[in-house]
Structure formats: C-alpha cells, structure tokens
C-alpha cells in the first residue's frame, strides 16, 4: 500500500471522521433523515474538503502562523459558497432538503481540523488524497446512517420501498429524537465490540473540535492535541 492509498484507507477506516473521530456531528444528525440526503451532504463536504486541503497545502508556506486560522476560514467559506451556488443551480431538490446545513459546512470541524492537522504540513497531492479519504469516510458514514434511519422510519431505501407492506414505519426515527437514538445505539454497539473511538474522551471546556481547540487559549495546543489523535 503506497502513501496515497494509505491516506484513503486512513480516512475511510482508521480515522473515519464520523465513527472513530466523532467530528462534524451537527450535519451527521441533521441531514441523515434519508440515505440520499446523507449522500448529498457527504459529497458536498467531500468536494469542499478536497479543494480546501489542496489550496491550503499550496499556500501553507506563505501564510504567517498567527493568522492561519482566519485565512483557512476565508478559503473554506469561499469554497462552500461556490459549492452552495452550484447545488442551488443544478440540484435544487438537494438544496431544499439540506437548506441551511450547506453554508454551515464552513464550521464543520472536519474541514478546519484536516486543514490544521494535515494540509498545513503536507504537500498538495498528498493533501488531496487525505481530503478524498476523509470525505469518502464521511460520505459512507452519512449514507449508512441515512439508510438505517430511512429504512426504519419510512420503510424505504433511496426512495424505493424495501420493507414488506405489513411493516409499520417508526416515524420518530426520521424525526429529531431518532437521530440521537440511532447514534447512541451505534456508539454503544461499537463500545461493545471494543472499537476504539474518540467518543468518550472529550476534554472539558474543549468540545472535541479541532478548530475550536486551536482558537482556544484554555485548551492544550492544537499541535499537541492533533499529535495525540494522528
């Protein structure tokens, strides 16, 4: 396995942003009411993540250290605006379904987290593969959660009826409480199977969010924290 495929394997399996790192929880809960919404959100984030990693890696030696986070935020916000306008123009049904969560990709911890932890220290092509791996891991996770919620809560998968006619859909699964419930069960199952996750080691005062942590003086330095995780 060369270092490029290793990055993709790392994103999908070793450091899966959703199941292992527990990052970017807001969109994970909010948009996984159906498989297609989860997939759409995943791909939107994937595109932003690849481009952001690439651009940040290109300018990593030019940006002074003190202003790197504001600079990253501007780059990410610009990319998100581009993706938002493209979705609005070409995939209007997805734009309506995801709504406010598309511009909120800007504050998704995964993107600033990868910028800080990887793209700011590595060459462009490797950073692109890192973004691709993380993005794929996120997309797969969101699609899976969306699929489970859609099948249980609506009896369909990608809009196609899959459950037998006598199945009574559990409506609450696709509503807000269902998101918390399904995630709780997934993490409990992973705990029972002894999969190492970062779910249980959130530091007090720091919400387990790299971007937040990097800006907070009350927390350990971002390099140190990232060093522990990577």
């Amino acid at each position: 396995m060369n270092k490029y495929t290793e990055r993709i394997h790392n994103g999908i399996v070793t450091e899966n942003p959703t199941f292992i790192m527990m990052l970017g929880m807001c969109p994970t809960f909010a948009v996984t009411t159906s498989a297609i919404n989860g997939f759409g959100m995943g791909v939107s984030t994937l595109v932003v993540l690849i481009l952001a990693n690439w651009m940040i890696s290109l300018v990593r030696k030019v940006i002074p250290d003190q202003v790197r986070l504001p600079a990253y935020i501007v780059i990410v916000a610009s990319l998100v605006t581009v993706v938002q306008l493209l979705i609005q123009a070409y995939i209007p049904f997805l734009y309506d379904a995801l709504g406010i969560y598309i511009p909120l990709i800007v504050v998704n911890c995964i993107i600033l987290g990868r910028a800080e932890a990887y793209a700011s220290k590595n060459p462009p092509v490797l950073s692109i593969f890192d973004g691709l791996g993380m993005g794929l891991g996120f997309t797969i996770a969101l699609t899976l959660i969306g699929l489970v919620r859609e099948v249980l809560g609506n009896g369909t998968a990608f809009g196609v009826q899959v459950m037998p006619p006598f199945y009574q859909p559990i409506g609450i699964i696709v509503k807000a409480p269902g998101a918390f419930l399904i995630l709780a069960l997934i993490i409990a199952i992973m705990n029972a199977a002894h999969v190492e996750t970062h779910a249980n080691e959130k530091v007090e005062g720091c919400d387990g969010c790299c971007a937040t942590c990097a800006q907070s003086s009350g927390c350990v330095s971002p390099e140190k924290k990232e060093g522990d995780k990577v």
Partner: protein
Amino acid sequence: MTSLLMIVLTAALINNVVLNQFLGLCSFLGVSKATKTAASLGGAVIFVVTVASGVANLLYTFVLEPLALEYLQTIVFILVIAALVQVVEMFLKNSAPALHAALGIYLPLITTNCCVLGVALTNVTNEYGFFESILAGFGTAVGYTIAIVLMAGIRERVEENEYIPQCFKGAPVVLLIAALMAIAFAGFANLNV
C-alpha cells in the same frame, strides 16, 4: 407585540436550536458535564448570538443588499462573528473583568459554534428586520442555554448511576438523554400563543 413574543418563543422552545435543529451540538455534548460551566457557556452564547444577529442584519441590509453581494453572506458573517468575539473579549476584559473571568475560556469557543452562524443565516432566510433578528438571536440562545443546563443537570445525576451497562457509559447515554429531551421538547410544537 404578539408576533415579536412568538419569534422569541418559537426560537427558544418550539424550534430549539440544539434539540430540533442540531446546531451547536459539539459544545452541547462536550461542555455539559456540570451545570455551573454549562450556565456560564449559555450566558456567553446569549451575549454573542444576540449581538452577532444584530450586526449581521445591519451588514446584510446596508452593505450586502445595496451592493448586490448577497452571495457573499457566508464569508462575511463568519468573519464578522470571529472579529466580534475578539472585540467582545477585549471589551469585557477591560470594562467588566468580573464577567470576563466568569465567561473566560468560553468566549473564543463560540466562534466555531455553528449556532451563531446558523442564526445569522436563518434570519436572512426569514427576512427578519433588525429588531426581529435580535429577538430571534436572543430566543435561540436562550433555547440553547435551557437545553445545555437541563442536560448538565441530568448528566450530573446519571453519571453516578452504576446500573448503566458498560457499553452505554459515556457518549451513548448522553445521546439517549438528548433523545428523550428532544421528545419532550417536541411537545412544544403544539404551543399556541
């Protein structure tokens, strides 16, 4: 008057920012271990979200709209929020040291709290005016504070409980509490003012 009250109530209870819109989840799950810290964070969020909503509305109405630059709202809002948090922190440090000490490390955390950006963007979508934006921001942040303080109160009691199965300890039981709270808050959907 009734409509203004309705904006606050809708934002705080019916459309609760954490339990219904899933914004600000990171800190809701991460900083809810003790009611005291949760309340401090809530206070900081109320302050910043209310001010940010007003500033974002003024910028949108008087700068972005006249120049037809509405599509730049995401970039402008996130920068304004980041700058605002810095300014608020410096201002509090000099003029209200006691308050600054209380809110302390929570102020910088708020920049990337997605509920601040979320409220600013929702206000634009809802075409709220200046006062409506401020009220919606205030209501949302109050809803956030209610949710996180309740969650911290429940967690303080539940974490002592030794009957929780091993695999449910930590994050899963917190998420289950959140699920039950979300069901309870769904009851507000029938609220008529």
